[in-house]
């Protein structure tokens, strides 16, 4: 605390130790101002903004140079939506104490955000307009304006209170109530809002009492087992026994009916649709497979025809498989003979293949046939003897079918052997192949006349006739 005359710091004495002036009343005033400031601060901390404003104004009335009280008052005005009043207090505060004053920060924040300041100003202007409309009797227009204000600056307490008042005038208690609750949330100590809330509560209570008249017969009293039972009259006690059973049966039948008539048809339809879909898909697959099979069969026919054509074409050049086998046999025989000329047993099977194959002599070239002739010339006497020996042994052993096959080969290799022909004919005869026997007997008689074999053949012919 400074002396008001000389500015010296005051002590606990009632006079200034510097200029000796009386400061007792001055100190009392300053102390009272400080007390009011503290009171205002406490109220502001618990959001009793109305009470805080009153206390701070008193503090400033005692000491206008109380910068803290003025700054706090500006802050509270700002919270209540009175932006211009707040600015005024901060500007005055800054003039009283230009340096180290938080009011400078508050002012610069507002001035830097010009759009926000315009919004606040717009809200205040609309409020003033709405107030004029109320005085003129245009309550509905005023309500519209006030709704816009509440959206621009929800903290503007005067707008909220005026809007609540207008709703209460129109008996829209449900609309006024939340607005007033919002005001009390911002300012707990707002007596106007609390009065309005009390009025709403009273009016709504009256209305609910009128709507629900009490009746005398609303409860039923009776005794059971030394107890007094009190229950509302409309309560129906649950039944037991037959009633329950009947209810159960009815409920069951009703449920079954619902399932059978409502749920089952739908399910059946779903299942039917699913089956039809599966059948359709199966049919499509089957048709696709049939088409594939037909295509493959056609392709197979084409390939078979092509193969036959190729076989026919190249068969003319290289011969059939049997002919090719005979040619290979001939070449093998030649190779065996060239390796060992006395290996008749090695040559014999190859030459037998050639001599038995009729196509070999028809389809082969002259070169092949010439080679065959050469081989036959070289080996036929030996091969004829080889087969005659085997055939005669088989004839003697009465193995006539083997005798026939061996003796036929012997005759193929060398047809001028009377013994081979005679025993071949005899083997035919033994196998009851009489025509062939007669033929061969005839050849023996013709080719070898006046011989023993011819005479034997003639007698055999006579015996068959």
């Amino acid at each position, binding site marked *: 605390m400074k002396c*008001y005359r000389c500015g010296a710091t005051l002590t606990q004495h009632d006079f200034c130790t510097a200029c000796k002036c009386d400061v007792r*009343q*001055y100190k009392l*005033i*300053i102390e*009272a*101002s400080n007390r009011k400031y503290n009171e205002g601060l406490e109220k502001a901390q618990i959001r009793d903004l109305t009470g805080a404003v009153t206390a701070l104004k008193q503090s*400033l*009335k*005692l*000491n*206008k*140079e109380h910068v803290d009280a003025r700054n706090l008052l500006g802050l509270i005005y700002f919270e209540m939506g*009175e*932006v*211009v*009043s707040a*600015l*005024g207090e901060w*500007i*005055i505060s800054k003039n009283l104490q230009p340096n180290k004053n938080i009011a400078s920060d508050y002012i610069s924040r507002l001035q830097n955000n010009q759009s926000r*300041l315009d919004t*606040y*100003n717009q809200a*205040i*202007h609309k*409020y*003033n307009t709405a*107030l004029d409309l*109320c*005085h003129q009797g245009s309550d509905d227009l005023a309500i519209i304006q006030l709704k816009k204000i509440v959206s621009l600056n929800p903290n*503007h307490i*005067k707008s909220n*209170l*005026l809007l609540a*008042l207008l709703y*209460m*005038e129109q008996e829209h208690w449900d609309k006024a109530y939340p607005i007033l609750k919002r005001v009390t949330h911002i300012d707990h100590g707002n007596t*106007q809002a609390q*009065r*309005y809330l009390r*009025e709403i509560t009273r009016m709504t209570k009256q209305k609910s009492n009128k709507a629900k008249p009490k009746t005398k017969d609303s409860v039923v009293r009776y005794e059971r087992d030394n107890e007094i039972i009190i229950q509302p009259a409309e309560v129906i006690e649950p039944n037991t026994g037959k009633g329950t059973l009947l209810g159960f049966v009815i409920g069951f039948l009703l449920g079954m009916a619902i399932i059978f008539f409502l749920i089952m048809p739908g399910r059946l339809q779903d299942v039917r649709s699913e089956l039809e879909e599966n059948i359709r898909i199966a049919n499509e697959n089957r048709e696709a497979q049939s088409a594939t099979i037909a295509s493959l069969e056609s392709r197979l026919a084409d390939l078979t025809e092509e193969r036959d054509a190729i076989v026919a074409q190249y068969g003319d050049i290289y011969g059939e498989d049997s002919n090719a086998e005979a040619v290979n046999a001939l070449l093998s025989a030649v190779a065996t003979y060239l390796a060992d000329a006395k290996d008749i047993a090695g040559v014999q099977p190859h030459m037998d293949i050639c001599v038995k194959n009729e196509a070999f002599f028809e389809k082969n070239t002259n070169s092949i046939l010439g080679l065959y002739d050469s081989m036959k010339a070289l080996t036929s006497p030996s091969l004829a003897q080889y087969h005659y020996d085997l055939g005669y042994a088989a004839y003697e052993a009465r193995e006539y079918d083997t005798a026939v096959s061996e003796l036929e080969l012997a005759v193929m290799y060398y047809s001028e052997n009377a013994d081979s022909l005679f025993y071949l004919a005899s083997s035919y005869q033994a196998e009851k192949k009489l025509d062939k026997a007669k033929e061969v007997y005839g050849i023996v008689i013709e080719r070898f006349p006046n011989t023993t074999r011819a005479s034997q053949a003639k007698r055999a012919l006579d015996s068959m006739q």
Partner: protein
Amino acid sequence: MIQFEEELKKFYKSPEVGDIEDVIYNQDMTDATDLLFKIMQQDNNGTTNRR
């Protein structure tokens, strides 16, 4: 019972940004200390006059 007209009289206009000069100039800046100084001054003058 709340009377609408009576309640409406309690509402007054808020100052807008353009009115801020008026708000500041119209502030009554007289406080208790000013009154005290005035009284002390009057006392001093009275003492001087009595002399």
